[in-house]
Structures are given as C-alpha cells and as structure tokens.
C-alpha cells in the first residue's frame, strides 16, 4: 500500500491503541519503514515476572513480538488484511530487567498468497544486546474475510471510537 512512513506510523499507532491489551500498557509505534516496524513499551511494574529479582515476565516478550510481527504484516501486504498468528517461536537470550523500556523491531520477510513470514528482536538499550528473538507466521484471510473498511479505518483522520 502506498502510504508514507508517517502515515503508516499513525495507522499502526491506531492499530495498537485499538487493541485493549497494548493500549492499556501504553505501547508506542516509534517508526515504520515498510515492511519493518519499531515499537517501544514504556516501563510498568506490571511487566514483572519475578518481583524479588526484578525480571520481566517472559510472556511480555512473546506478547510484544506477536504484536510487532503482526504490525509488520499489515504494512507488508498490498492492502491490509486481517491476519491471525499461525505459530510463534521465541528464544530467550538473556533476562529483561525492571525499570527500562522494551524495544522491539520486527519485519515481514516474505509474503505469499496464503502466508506472511516474519521475525522480530526485543532489546533493552543497547540494541546490540537483544533479550529475545521471535519468528512468527501469519495466515492471510484475504479480502473476503476482512471486514469492509478495515484498511480505511487504519488510515482514517480521526481516532475511531473505542
């Protein structure tokens, strides 16, 4: 879809703020360069998986990778379609720690008639020290199974009522 990076940044911001889980956690879309996205999750104490040691819950990283890879899918398609996650694999390189934002960069690697293949990396500064890597495959449901106006709603000028 021929939209500017800025238009995509606004569209995918809308995408992650319409999702209740990521809206409530304050997930931000930082930059979009189709088919790649950069997202940032601000620190929140609810992200912890081990309060005593101050470690982030591994599931937070899975959730972030699913969301980021899914966002990259939207900007990789000719026209945005609804694409559920088929499967997802996450490797945990090192623990993520309390108090710092989590960054995730994800990209779509290949779009076929039925699938979109993606990968993503999560880190806390610096980017050279990743905490987790994910690969996720998404199913294209196609225009027939995408609600009418799905793409238009992403790029609408006004925030949808949520």
């Amino acid at each position, binding site marked *: 879809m021929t939209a500017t990076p800025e238009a995509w940044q606004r569209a995918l911001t809308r995408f992650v703020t319409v*999702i*209740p889980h990521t809206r409530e956690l304050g997930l931000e879309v930082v930059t979009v360069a189709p088919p790649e996205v950069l997202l940032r999750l601000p620190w929140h*104490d609810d992200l912890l998986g081990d309060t005593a040691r101050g470690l982030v*819950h591994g*599931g937070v990283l899975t959730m972030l990778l*699913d*969301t980021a890879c899914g966002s990259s899918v939207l900007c990789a398609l000719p026209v945005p379609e609804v694409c*559920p996650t*088929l*499967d997802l694999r996450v490797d945990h390189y090192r623990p993520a720690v309390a108090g710092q934002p989590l960054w995730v960069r994800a990209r779509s690697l290949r779009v076929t008639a039925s699938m979109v293949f993606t990968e993503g990396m999560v880190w806390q500064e610096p980017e050279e020290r990743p905490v987790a890597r994910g690969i996720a495959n998404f199913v294209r449901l196609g225009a027939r199974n995408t609600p009418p106006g799905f793409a238009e709603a992403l790029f609408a000028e006004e925030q949808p009522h949520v």
Partner: protein
Amino acid sequence: MFEGFHDVAWLEKTRAEGDVAAWMALIPYARRIGVSAVTDPQGEGLLFRLDPRDGNVGNVLLPALHGGVVAAFMETAATLDLMLAAREPRLPRIVDVSIDYLRTARVEPTLARCRLLREGRRLANVQVSAWQRSETEPVATARLHFVLEACEQNA
C-alpha cells in the same frame, strides 16, 4: 526471611504446601492478565485458568483474546507446574517457547493443562494445551524448554 523464588527455604516451604498463590504474588504480569491455579477435577494435579478480562482482548472485531496474552498464560502455567512437579525445588528459567494457534480464543475462561515430558539435571521440556469449551478442541498448544537453576542456599 527473604521471600523469593531464589530463596530455597521459601521455595521448599511454599512448594510443600502447594501454595501457588504465594508464587503468583511475585508475578505481577500473570496477575494482570488474571492467571490462577485450579484443582483438576479429573486428577490430582492442577489446571490453570485465564480470566476472560477486557484487558486481554487482542482483536476487537471478533472479539478474541490477544495471542500473546494466551502465550504468556501458557508460559506461566508451564513454569508453575514445573516448579510443583520437579523432583526437587528448582527455579525454572525459560529458554524457548513454540506456540501453535489452533482456534480463535474467545473472550471466555481459558484452561491449560501441562505435561512435564522430560526433567533432566539441567533442562526440562514442558508441553501445554489450552482450551475453552472442550479440552478436545484446544485453542493453542505450546512446548517450552527451561533451564533448572540451583537455588541459592543462603539467599
């Protein structure tokens, strides 16, 4: 006494009592998404339950639970189940997870059952199945590897 997963005395005590609630108190993200342990009506072990709360929604059109939240639920279930089922009190650290999404997870209660397929000296493999209306129709299956860390004796 310092209370935490790395404190072997505390881990031993809570494990002997099957006090999963004490463990949940140290896992804010699992509490946020609404994970709890429930007794398995068909056996002696535990099932895990994910509360169908609005904050867990990932698709407002269907509506459906966020796939990443379902994954976080299954990882929590696998970790806690492993802490209970392991031969001795050990602290699992996740190495990798692979999840298959089989059906749309509706905004309804979700249950999970874990199977410890292998517990070695250093590594464990746990399989998790999650379902909603019927266990024979899982919404997702996952397999996870954990490193089993030795607890600090003088935490």
